[in-house]
């Protein structure tokens, strides 16, 4: 007989941490993006996807609103806006 013993790879995807956001969330302006990929590189939630050339988007179902993508963007193309 066995109880819960192992977990499947990446099964944390079932935990939608986007619900943690209280105050703010990132808004990707898609105006000045140079495709450096730094936002995707440093996101602690690993939830920023490259959708197209010079076009990145966060997955709001996981984004915790930390603001690091906005900090790192060299072209100030990501701003933090109020979470409604």
């Amino acid at each position, binding site marked *: 007989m066995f109880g*819960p013993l192992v*977990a*499947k*790879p*990446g*099964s*944390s*995807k*079932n*935990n*939608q*941490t986007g619900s*943690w956001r209280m105050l703010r969330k990132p808004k990707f302006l898609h105006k000045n993006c140079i495709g450096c990929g730094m936002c*995707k*590189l*440093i*996101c*602690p*939630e*690993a*939830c*920023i*996807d*490259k959708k197209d050339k010079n076009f990145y988007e966060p*997955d709001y179902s*996981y984004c*915790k*609103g*930390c*603001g*690091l993508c*906005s*900090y*790192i963007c060299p072209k100030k193309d990501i701003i*933090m806006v109020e979470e409604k």
Partner: protein
Amino acid sequence: MSNHLKDHLFVSGHTACSGCGQAIAARLVVDSLGKDTIVCNATGCLEVFSSKCPQSSWRIPWIHSLFENAAAVASGIEAALRYLGKEHIEVCAFAGDGGTSDIGLQALSGMLERGHNVLFCCFDNEAYMNTGIQRSGLTPYEASTTTSPAGKIWQGNWRPKKPVVEICAAHFIPYAASASVGFPQDLQRKVKKAASISGPKYIQIHCPCPLGWGFDSSLTLEIAKNAVLSGLYPLVEYEYGKLTKVFKISRKPVIEYIKPQRRFRHLLKDEKVLKELQGVADRNIEYYGLGKEEK
């Protein structure tokens, strides 16, 4: 399924604090190593926020045993893979600063001495964060923690950081280095370099902790950069015991680094105490030769 859940080997849905430096570092490490990687994780923040049954953020084989034995379990996995002829798989041991410099030091030293092909990564957030911000051997001088609080008599932690990078280098292992999430590409380079070497490797990664150090989550990367640029967290590389590379800095004053952090707040009220911490940075800069040459 979203791309981000397939692109990375450490994925969303973990319960780390918003802006956690360790979450960034762990993902950068495993993403740089690729799918032929096995991780043994010590007890700590990273283990707890990534593996709450039945969920796991890890897309590579991963095991958590105890607090102090990550290096020993990793040694066992490496020996098993050697027996199976699967030496191309990179075995890693992940631990926090406590699980490395304090309770984990014996197993780490044993692993280094025996020469296992294991990459040991220390995620240095400078205190026992998972248990509530207690002082560890890697807590910096004058940092306030719950067991080394700044008060009427104490000025925070009264000991310097244990030189674990040097301790590992003193084992004459092929590669021992320090890195920072503030310099993610440098971290990736160091991980890839370690992966290309057969033998024991140690990388200590500075991971600022918004909750434990007391700053807004959007400042993690800036604070990590300032730690390096002030000289308080030198980025160095040792090969076979010899210091071969340092990251040269143009010296930011220590006050720039500590200003946003609640754990150093008491230094802003006491000039003498702040000067002592600046002295630590100055000594590092001299010892490692971190200063950029005057042109």
